């Protein structure tokens, strides 16, 4: 969009070059003005449509097809079977339905615990680092490092720590502290759930820390001074000043963390090398494995759509409840 920079006076500068200056100055700008934002948005919209919206619609369509290995090469031949995939995968009496339900509970427990601990560590770090002291900048950088690491590098390192015979965890627990007599397996069996949880908290808590730190910068110092003059101790200040001021940040942070961990694929995929034990069979891994093991993309899509619907309902309910509470407080 070329503009004239040589126009000598204000009147002539108003209309842009390329649009002949006729009639009232404002008129010709009207339609252009209203089109411009859409042009600016177009690349983003096209990309979002191509990579997110259209595949999502296709995914819903796929979930209604018998898209098994026989039809995957040419999916126009896949028969339309309506809701049959949903009935088959969500039927809680069938083996597949039971496995899916199990995976759902594992994922729910994993998300809630992971979000809870990540938030707890994040708020602790943000509060103790609120006031300046020597070494604060170094600690802040250090605490952010797990989040800055590429997820696979972080998780591979943890899988080394958790090896039964060569890992640090068993070395400390069994050899150095003598807390346990046998070397437990951490990456298979019941322990695998807790391993996964620790790795996820290690990786996610810095994000909570970063957001809460940003939120704390908006809390005016006078509030703390006023609270201190009133004789409020540490916990009182935390409860009456810090947490209420962080409420808007927390609302978004908790939801985002929940959705991320509920959809988490990377952590279990790298930690267990592609095949998660059933105790740590998160839903994304479950869908991935059942889709690519049997090449039954139809039922894989049905499970994905069901997952999406569940998350939409949860998010909507969460936003409704928290918004209503905010209105009450206001």
């Amino acid at each position, binding site marked *: *969009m070329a*503009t*004239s920079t040589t*126009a000598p006076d204000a009147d002539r*500068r108003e209309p842009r070059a390329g649009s002949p200056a006729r009639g009232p100055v404002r008129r010709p700008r009207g339609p252009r003005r*209203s089109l*411009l*934002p859409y042009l*600016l*948005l177009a*690349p*983003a919209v096209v990309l*979002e449509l191509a*990579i*997110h*919206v259209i*595949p*999502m619609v*296709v*995914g819903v369509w796929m979930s209604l097809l018998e898209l098994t290995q026989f039809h*995957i090469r040419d999916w126009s031949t896949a028969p339309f079977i309506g809701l049959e995939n949903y009935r088959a995968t969500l039927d809680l009496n069938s083996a597949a339905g039971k496995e899916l339900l199990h995976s759902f509970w594992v994922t729910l427990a994993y998300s809630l615990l992971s979000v809870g601990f990540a938030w707890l*560590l994040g708020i602790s*770090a943000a509060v*103790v680092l609120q006031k300046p002291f020597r070494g604060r900048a170094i600690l802040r*950088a250090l*605490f*952010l*490092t*797990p989040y*800055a*690491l*590429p997820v*696979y*590098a972080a998780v*591979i*390192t943890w899988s*080394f*720590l958790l090896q039964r*015979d060569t*890992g*640090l965890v068993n070395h400390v627990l069994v050899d150095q502290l003598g807390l346990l007599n046998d070397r437990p397996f951490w990456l298979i069996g019941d322990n695998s759930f807790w391993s996964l949880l620790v790795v996820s908290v*290690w990786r996610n808590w810095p994000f909570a820390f*970063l*957001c809460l730190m*940003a939120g704390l910068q908006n809390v005016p110092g006078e509030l703390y001074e006023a609270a201190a003059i009133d004789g409020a*101790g*540490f916990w009182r200040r935390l409860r009456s000043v810090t947490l209420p001021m962080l409420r*808007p940040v927390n609302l978004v942070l908790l939801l985002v963390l929940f959705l991320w961990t509920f*959809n988490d*694929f*990377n952590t279990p995929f790298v930690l267990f090398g*592609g095949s998660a034990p059933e105790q740590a069979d998160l*839903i*994304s891994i479950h869908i*991935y494995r059942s889709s690519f093991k049997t090449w039954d*993309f139809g039922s894989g899509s049905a499970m*994905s759509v069901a*997952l*999406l619907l569940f*998350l939409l309902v949860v998010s909507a309910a969460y936003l409704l409840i928290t918004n209503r509470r905010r209105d009450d407080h206001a």
Partner: protein
Amino acid sequence: MRETAGERWGRRIVLTLLTLFVVVPLYVMVTSAAKPLQDVQNGFTWWPSRPTLQPFIDMWSTVPLARYLVNSLVVSSIAAICSVAVAIFAAFAVSRYRFRGRGVFSVTVLSTQMFPGILFLLPLFLIYVNLGNATGIELYASRTGLIITYLTFSLPFSIWMLVGYFDSIPRGLDEAAQVDGAGPLRTLFQVILPAAVPGVVAVTVYAFMTAWGEVLFASVMTDEGSRTLAVGLQGYSTQFNVYWNQIMAASLVVSIPVVVGFLALQRYFVAGLTAGAVK
């Protein structure tokens, strides 16, 4: 405000525990990268029996690490630059114009970020494969396909953060530029972008990190030729030997650039998050 003794000790304990939690895995990564192979095959040791840089040399030949590295570099850089370019225009529109669909756009874009990746994976996989068969445009198992996919992954958050940044730039500057005869695009490039450089740089690094660390799509959408680090690094665990020392060395090498970039720019992330949250 004076700190009580209890608060001081509480702070020290919390900081010590958090530091230990964060540092121990990092320490193991760094020291194990300097261990000879027998050290990582037998019981764990806190310190290499004989510190060596050999893993940093061997890691290039055990797996084709250089190829994975180049693939990751190409994919992540192009995806990051394109993503930021697209995000700048979108954020400018959202920040400076009131138009119909503005709210819908913001909500839709942000919510796609929250949808399960697995939901896009199966259809996108089939679309790429079928598009390749039908038109010859190779998106499956190509770097182009990965670039297009990844650039949309960082787009929502980039737009959101840039809107926050742009909103914090006083509109008076725009108006002054317009009085001087600048059109919208010149206002964007000569007034707004120069004032938002830290935000743009932070968003670029974020987009790069997103692509650099992505695992799910990389594991399905690549073949041996287009494989990125996210999948390639798992090649060190062969059936006979797990080269933990080389894995740690490679992890360290691929982590350093993104960690340094992120930490150098962390305060701009904080500023961007603050700007976004204020709204």
